[in-house]
């Protein structure tokens, strides 16, 4: 089994979603490169002891995203890497999370100034530690 695959059937996250996410992640970090071959459905079913249909579904989804291609007689090939598109999505998600935090603060009646000073304090803490200035409180 490829080392970057580690599915957990007992999770509440559907198995095919786990497969799609992990293969996307492998593309993002470069563990899988364009031109590389993915295991066949039967190989993967055997390695992971999961239903072949689940793997077919994951491969279909990845093909729909244009990341892999299945060719008769050749197998399933990676055709594209993610070139940081995941990173872009993660950045967008980060700013959404900031928005959600502010909304939560409003629900909890934490006012604008308190949120700002909490952010400032957290930023100071993080960057001071990162710069090795651990003496600063």
């Amino acid at each position, binding site marked *: 089994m490829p080392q970057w695959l580690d599915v957990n059937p*007992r999770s509440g996250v*559907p198995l095919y979603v786990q497969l799609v996410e992990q293969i996307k992640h492998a593309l993002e970090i470069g563990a899988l490169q364009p031109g590389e071959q993915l295991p066949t459905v039967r190989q993967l*079913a055997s390695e992971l*002891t999961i*239903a072949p249909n*689940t793997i077919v579904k994951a491969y279909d989804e990845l093909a729909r995203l244009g990341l892999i291609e299945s060719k008769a007689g050749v197998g399933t090939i990676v055709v594209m890497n993610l070139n940081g598109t995941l990173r872009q999505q993660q950045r967008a998600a980060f700013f959404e999370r900031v928005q959600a935090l502010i909304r939560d603060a409003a629900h909890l009646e934490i006012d604008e100034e308190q949120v700002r000073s909490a952010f400032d304090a957290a930023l100071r803490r993080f960057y001071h530690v990162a710069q090795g200035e651990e003496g600063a409180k």
Partner: protein
Amino acid sequence: MAAAIEIEHLIINYGAHRAVDGLTLTVPVGAIFGFLGPNGAGKTTTIKTLLGLRSPDGGSARVLGYDVASQSLDVRARVGYVSEVNSLYDSLTIPQLCAFCRAVNRTWNQAVVDRYIQVFGLPARARVGRLSKGMKSQLALSLALGSNPDLLILDEPTSGLDPLARHEFLNKLVAEIAAAGKTIFFSSHLLSEVEAVADWVGIIRHGKVVVCDELDHLKQTQKVLKLTYAELPLPAELEALRALPTVMSLSQEGRTVRLLAHGDVAALAEAIQARPYALRDVDTVDLNLEDLFLEYMKEGEHGPERTD
């Protein structure tokens, strides 16, 4: 999608007791279908009916297109069956048992059986009585494949197997049999094994289907939404939540309300946040099969039923 098994409004009575009570279930071709339910829910009775061993008292069932009541011979010729009770003849050797099976089956492919015996690494000439429980299950499965069935019906095939033997059995079931395109219908008590190998699940209770769906779809669409209100929610508001079309059940404990929801849970969460009651927290909880099973078992008689 073609159906390997189609059960419609099936009723089976044992004397005054109704073991199966209007059960409706469809198993698509090519599925690995996990058939779940508590003891006495009607699983084995349903399986016996599918094999034509018990006639329906109402409703109907078709297996590979054949009616189980009027065409049971056709059904039995095309379905491989492994029961929870091992009914192999202990005094025979494996080749003798194969010869016996060949004699009583209309179609028999010894090469296929030999291949599976080899896949499982069974001692080819051994006496059946000498085999371990795990090996006997593997032999029973190999023999069930001898008539080259399109559908395998397995009644608790791994009960009594140790974890290693169970894993081996399920692994071959998935990699050798399902991958060859055969439909597998198996009952089980072990939610963890169903969760790993099944792509469809049907849960029955009191002889009725409470849910029948693709497992991934079920996990994607059935979630618990945990709402924490700023103030104790009013009974009228709880009723309004209960009446929302995607809310299947609701339980309340103080300011916390748990909704079992299906469908677009994010949209539901947004709709609830737009209501005029302040919420401290809204949390979406993913459910694994055990959580789902327990949620369905919790629901009362008036609980919702879904068969989509």
